[in-house]
């Protein structure tokens, strides 16, 4: 019974794989197809081979890791060496197909009215009439001139003539029809009422990988994502192409880009450190207060102080944005009423940073408070009793007992909080959107941009429109930096080792 179910599941799984595989093949996603094939093969092996038994539990995890972690990284690396972005979003084949499908209407070409007939085999016969009453018969791509009383006309009378409704319903079939008019021109559908004489603008020469303009004979060759003639005139649209280290050269070779990048990087570090430091200090302070057994209504205070954590950060951030509003914000109105001056919260680089730290303090202190509360409660009371007996002051108790024991369990969380704030896109984007701008920056960069928001703005708000290529290369640089920081962090704090020892 169990075996039957097992094979049934495997069968269903394989059918599903097959289905997805066909779907991927038809949409030409070959890379994902190969991945899927490997996955399917592995799944079958693990199920059928007795030795594969332990891997049954490992395989799904590995699968999702490949799909959600490894594949995006590989893809980002690939994009960073391409010109993928506005103007270069299509694949080369799509661009060739599109350019080959461009037809120019001959300037003084005549419009041909037409009637359509369908013979018994379902083939279309088209009877064209020009303004002088000359008639042409089109069938299977060939045109025949008709005489006054042509026998072919009688033949047409036997076929079913298409009514207007039929014509509309057959629009796709009709617009696919093309008749050789002379050796360069074609008769093609112009609209539902007429056909006209067109010239195919470009034709693709597969052997030389070049597009040839029919009228002038100009040859366009693919250069850096565009078809380009010898003078450097480009055809739009361009296509995705590998451009090597161009994006990295743009990133590091241009002081108007590197300048902001360095400033953004420095602020990112400051921001992450400040966020962790402020939230931790306030959280710890409150935790110590709340940990005092003589405090009345502890539970009430605790519940109230956790509230900022319970409200979605998006809502809080937007409310704070309103509070910080220079013109109408409550904070400035209070300042105006009490000290008689107001602060340009979101306009001045320094104050914008202060506003961000305040907001993040509000959002982050309950988390720190909760973890500190937990950690404090795990410190045994006998330690403090012993300290009191030895005559230690409260500061000495705090300094020599609370802090070291607290750090054992809290330090790894501080490291992870640092990493989180390093990439805390939503707070930055919701409050300041990285503004105010840095003077003279060539890429969209602001004083409060951190690396991740800078990348986002590069990708979606840059001067080129969308610039995935450059954004991916910045992402890789960020990846290396955060990787290194995290590595050293763990190395020097020894955070992970302590966790293993003590928990």
């Amino acid at each position, binding site marked *: 019974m169990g075996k039957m179910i097992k094979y049934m599941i495997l069968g269903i799984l394989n059918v*599903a794989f097959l289905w997805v595989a066909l779907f991927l093949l038809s949409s030409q996603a070959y890379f994902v197809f190969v991945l899927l094939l490997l996955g399917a093969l592995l799944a079958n092996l693990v199920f059928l081979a007795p030795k594969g038994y332990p891997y049954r539990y490992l395989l799904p995890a590995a699968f999702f890791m490949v799909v959600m972690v490894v594949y995006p990284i590989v893809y980002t690396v690939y994009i960073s060496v391409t010109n993928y972005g506005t*103007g270069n979003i299509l694949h080369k084949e799509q661009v060739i197909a599109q350019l080959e499908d461009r037809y120019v209407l001959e300037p003084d070409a005549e419009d041909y009215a037409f009637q359509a007939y369908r013979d018994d085999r379902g083939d279309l016969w088209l009877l064209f009439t020009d303004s002088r009453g000359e008639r042409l018969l089109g069938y299977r791509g060939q045109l025949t001139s008709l005489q006054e009383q042509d026998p072919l006309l009688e033949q047409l009378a036997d076929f079913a003539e298409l009514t207007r409704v039929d014509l509309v319903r057959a*629009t796709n079939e009709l617009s696919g029809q093309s008749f050789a008019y002379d050796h360069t021109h074609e008769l093609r559908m112009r609209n539902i009422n007429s056909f006209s004489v067109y010239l195919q603008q470009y034709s693709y020469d597969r052997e030389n990988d070049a597009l040839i303009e029919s009228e002038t004979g100009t040859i366009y060759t693919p250069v850096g994502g565009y078809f380009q003639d010898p003078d450097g005139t480009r055809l739009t649209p361009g296509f995705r192409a590998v451009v090597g280290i161009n994006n990295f050269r743009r990133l590091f070779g241009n002081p108007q880009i590197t300048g902001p990048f360095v400033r953004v990087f420095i602020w990112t570090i400051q921001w992450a450190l400040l966020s962790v430091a402020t939230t931790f200090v306030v959280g710890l302070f409150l935790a110590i207060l709340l940990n005092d057994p003589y405090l009345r209504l502890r539970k009430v205070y605790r519940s109230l102080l956790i509230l900022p954590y319970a409200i979605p950060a998006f809502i809080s951030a937007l409310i704070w944005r309103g509070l910080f509003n220079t*013109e109408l914000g409550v904070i400035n109105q209070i300042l105006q009423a009490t000290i008689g001056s107001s602060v340009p919260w979101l306009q001045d680089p320094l104050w914008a940073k202060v506003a961000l730290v305040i907001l993040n303090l509000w959002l982050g202190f309950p988390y720190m408070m909760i973890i500190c509360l937990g950690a404090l409660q795990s410190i045994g009371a006998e330690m403090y009793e012993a300290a009191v007996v030895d005559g230690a002051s409260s500061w000495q108790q705090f300094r020599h007992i609370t802090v070291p024991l607290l750090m054992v369990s809290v330090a790894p969380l501080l490291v992870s909080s640092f990493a989180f704030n390093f990439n805390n896109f939503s707070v930055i984007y919701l409050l300041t959107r990285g*503004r105010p701008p840095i003077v003279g920056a060539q890429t*969209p960069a602001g004083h409060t941009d951190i690396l991740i928001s800078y990348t986002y703005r590069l990708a979606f708000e840059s*001067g080129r429109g969308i610039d995935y290529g450059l954004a991916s290369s910045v992402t890789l640089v960020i990846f290396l930096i955060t990787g290194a920081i995290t590595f050293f962090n763990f190395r020097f704090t020894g955070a992970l080792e302590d966790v293993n020892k003590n928990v």
Partner: protein
Amino acid sequence: MKRIATIFFLLVLVMSLSLPTMASVPGELLIWSDGERAPVLAGVAKEFVIEYGITVRIQELPFGDIRDNLAIVAPTGEGPDIIVGAHDWLGQLITDGLIEPIELADESAFLQSGLDAFTWGGKYYGIPYAIEAIGLIYNKDLAGDEGPETFEELIELGKELREEGKYALVMPQPDPYHTFPFFSILGGYVFGLDADGVLDPLDVGLANDGAVEGFEFFEYLLDERILARATPYDTMMSLFQNGNAAGMITGPWAFGDVRSAGINYGFKQIPSYQGQYGRPFLGAQGFMVSSFSENKMLANLFLNEFVATKDTMLAIYEGDPRPTAFLPAADIINEDPDMRGVMESAAEGIPMPAIPAMNAVWTAWSDALELVINEQSAPRPAIENAVQLIIQTIKDSGY
């Protein structure tokens, strides 16, 4: 456990694949429309089915998402046949190879400026249904029934109002689109025309003498507290809704909010300064055909015969009142005083450049505005630096 996991995995797979894939399929039309136009198009679609037996499906997307989603989805063959959109998307959509020229059955039925907005390289890329331009929405209780005709009047008004803590003028900041009239009022422009009458991306006129003088005038209004400083759109709107501002520079999309606040308002073109009117950007909205449509000819037919009709255009207007670009419907629509005001403002308008180089303009320009609004830079160096960056970016991108 394993079995549950497998079944769950299968379910997810099946569900993700069996979602109705909305894609352009031969013989059926798929339209991406925003919420305002979707019900009207759904009605037209019914007529089309009755007439020809061809299904037209409408997929509703937020207006601003249509362009970005098209770029992602269309090349994979999952996109629509027809989209609703704004004319300033043209540059990006055409350089990306995402939309096709349209053959208009009757050009004379459209307002010329609407057609111009959708023209690219001598071809039409859209069928316009509405045009729009910003102007001055004024509070009749503060600015009088006629509203200020000149900035000189507005300044006088502002000097009285600021005593009460009110403003003569509010506008979204920093916002190049809304601030452009200050640049154009004394002769600034975004792109100049070359000898062939085509926009020249390397001739940026935002830092010429007229533009700088206009920008300095903008700064003067801020410094004198005639114009409220650093107000984002929503702050601007609440100042106006609460009766704390006499005038507001924005477009017809604000009428609803103003009306709901019970303000007795009027709409007129942007006041004149030194005898010249501030010229706003002219915008147009319309229908475009995707390059990846399997039914281009059918889409053209649908747009020409079923959308470009008086009934449809009036229905579009009823759903979302904007001045129409379709002349047979114009007489009825222009009876509305708001619409007439927008039309007058639009008559002074300059079509917003739709060339891709425009992408390079917005960010740098917006940053220059922000620096001046935040009092971190004088207008001239800010905008001169911005123009230098714009030209640099345009050269680097090879537009």
